[in-house]
């Protein structure tokens, strides 16, 4: 009967109940959308950073990470590579030699990071081949070809098949130069790839540098679900003379960003929940004040205060039970739809790509998130109605009956 009274009271003032249910729907929806959006923002950023830049982890000569001098090559790379290949959680491995130098076309010259790669390995690890939008990816057997980013090509005013000269110091400190032909132009969200990198074959650059058979960097990708940090920690032990770093260590900015997003989401949650709580306190309090007389009659007749309290709580619960699933459904539909279609940020992508974002985001939330949001909102609603419910029990029946 308490249930029946509460249920009918919910229907008694449809407008007011509608407002509470609506507020819950909007609150849940906003949380789901905000959470999904931020998560995809972050995931997309981290994923593209891992995929195109850091990979899941890298190994260097300890000094190389401080001073990128070409003499700091990795010791005993063969046994390291062999060990990495034996790791079940490691999927692909590539090694690179890296030197900073100059790149010059017939018109322009600029500083560049020259990365010597094995085209096949590299395509497995960073899918560098997928970034080629003009020309080709080292497929011909001709030596001394390179790939450069779109922006760098513009700056140098070169096209596919143009010739460029790379200049750098070799292992003995002598200035060396090599003529290369542009095989392909890369289009990447990453500013590093786009503006200041040149990819060449490892053999070509090593020959010029005089460090044949050596590399400066080993990068690896891991199978899905791997704890990258734990793996890196284990590899640190396995190769004490080298420096192994996980992607989190390689780009602390990502970790910071992750924390910031987490904090922002928490703030968002607090704001939405607070707004919701105030809305509910308000409307339920109104529902109580409107019914002082009726509550007085109930208590005069012999309804215990605990039951009066319960009645108001049940009313809120019923509202939550209506609003909760509707809000979750609205959130789910939005996330599902946008997760399929993507949120096109092209309009803002000039700015976003500059800091390395993909311009289309695919929001996602897992079941756990939905459950947490749902429970959170219902709980907030119940907490918010504690005060109105308590207030309802505070009336003196004799006075309440005579109030209008």
């Amino acid at each position, binding site marked *: *009967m308490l249930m029946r009274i509460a249920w*009918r009271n919910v229907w008694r003032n449809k407008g007011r109940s509608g407002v509470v249910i609506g507020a819950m729907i909007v609150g849940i929806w906003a949380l789901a959308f905000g959470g999904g959006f931020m998560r995809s923002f972050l995931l997309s950023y981290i994923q593209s950073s891992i995929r195109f830049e850091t990979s899941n982890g890298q190994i260097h000569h300890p000094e190389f990470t401080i001073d990128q001098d070409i003499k700091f090559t990795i010791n005993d790379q063969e046994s390291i590579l062999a060990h990495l290949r034996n790791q079940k959680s490691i999927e692909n491995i590539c090694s690179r030699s890296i030197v900073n130098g100059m790149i010059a076309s017939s018109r322009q010259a600029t500083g560049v990071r020259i990365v010597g790669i094995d085209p096949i390995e590299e395509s497995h690890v960073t899918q560098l081949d997928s970034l080629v939008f003009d020309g080709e990816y080292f497929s011909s057997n001709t030596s001394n070809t390179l790939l450069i980013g779109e922006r760098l090509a513009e700056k140098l005013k070169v096209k596919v098949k143009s010739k460029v000269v790379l200049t750098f110091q070799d292992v003995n400190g002598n200035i060396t130069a090599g003529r290369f032909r542009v095989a392909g132009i890369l289009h990447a969200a990453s500013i590093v790839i786009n503006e200041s990198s040149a990819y060449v074959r490892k053999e070509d650059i090593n020959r010029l540098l005089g460090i044949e058979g050596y590399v400066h960097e080993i990068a690896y990708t891991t199978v899905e679900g791997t704890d990258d940090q734990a793996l890196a920690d284990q590899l640190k032990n396995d190769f004490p003379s080298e420096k192994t770093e996980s992607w989190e260590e390689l780009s602390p900015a990502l970790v910071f960003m992750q924390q910031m997003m987490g904090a922002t989401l928490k703030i968002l949650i607090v704001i939405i929940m607070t707004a919701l709580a105030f809305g509910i306190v308000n409307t339920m309090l109104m529902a109580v004040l409107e019914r002082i007389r009726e509550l007085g009659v109930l208590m005069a*007749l012999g309804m215990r205060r605990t039951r009066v309290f319960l009645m108001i709580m049940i009313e809120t619960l019923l509202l939550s039970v209506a609003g909760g699933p509707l809000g979750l459904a609205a959130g789910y539909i939005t996330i599902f739809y946008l997760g399929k279609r993507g949120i096109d940020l092209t309009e803002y992508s000039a700015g976003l790509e500059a800091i390395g974002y993909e311009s289309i985001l695919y929001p996602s939330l897992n079941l756990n998130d939905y459950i947490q949001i749902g429970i959170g909102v219902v709980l907030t609603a119940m907490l918010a109605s504690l005060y109105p419910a308590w207030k309802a029990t505070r009336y003196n029946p004799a006075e309440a009956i005579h109030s209008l």
Partner: protein
Amino acid sequence: MATLIKATQVSKIYHKTVVPVHALNKVDLSIEEGEFTAIVGPSGCGKTTLLNILGGLDHPTSGKVEITGIDITNMKDSDLIDFRLQNIGFVFQAYNLIPVLTAVENVEFIMLLQRKDKKERIARAYELLEKMSMLDKADNRPGELSGGQQQRVAVARALASKPRFILADEPTANLDSASTANLLDLMAQINKEQKATFVFSTHDQRVMDKAKRLVTLLDGSIVSDITR
């Protein structure tokens, strides 16, 4: 006959205003089983205050109220709620009923609070509605009933809990004369047939005429007490 209600030297002073209001002054009153008593007097003389105190809805400032020998004067509020539920039936001036419940549910409700089982509740609710000539409106909500009909449902509800007595504070104040006569006749009939004790307040002469005992209040004191 046994004494149901015994009020001894009951005073009530309201301190809400700057000047304290002496609503009741050392009232002595006892009500026997089976009475059909009207508390009468002009507006503001203390009728509501007296009924509230007799019904355990309010505490006297001084004095003592015993119901069937039990002193309720210093009972805790939470105990009083249960005490009222088991012993006292209430009819208020107006808007007595729970608006979201139908007539029969309103009557059933009080028995539900008493944890009576469903079969008994329903049987008794319909029986009482029939007695109050409200059977045809059993499934209507209070909003769909006239003032007189609402009060008849309220009386049915007051009877439903099988109370020791029924307190009705100006039950006819909002009714036209036909409904007033009808309600009073039904109450009188139940009083006669079932020996149900009624104590009601009124300032309506036609209602007073139906009472068997007339207690007149003036400025918080009983000035006359006539049994016919």
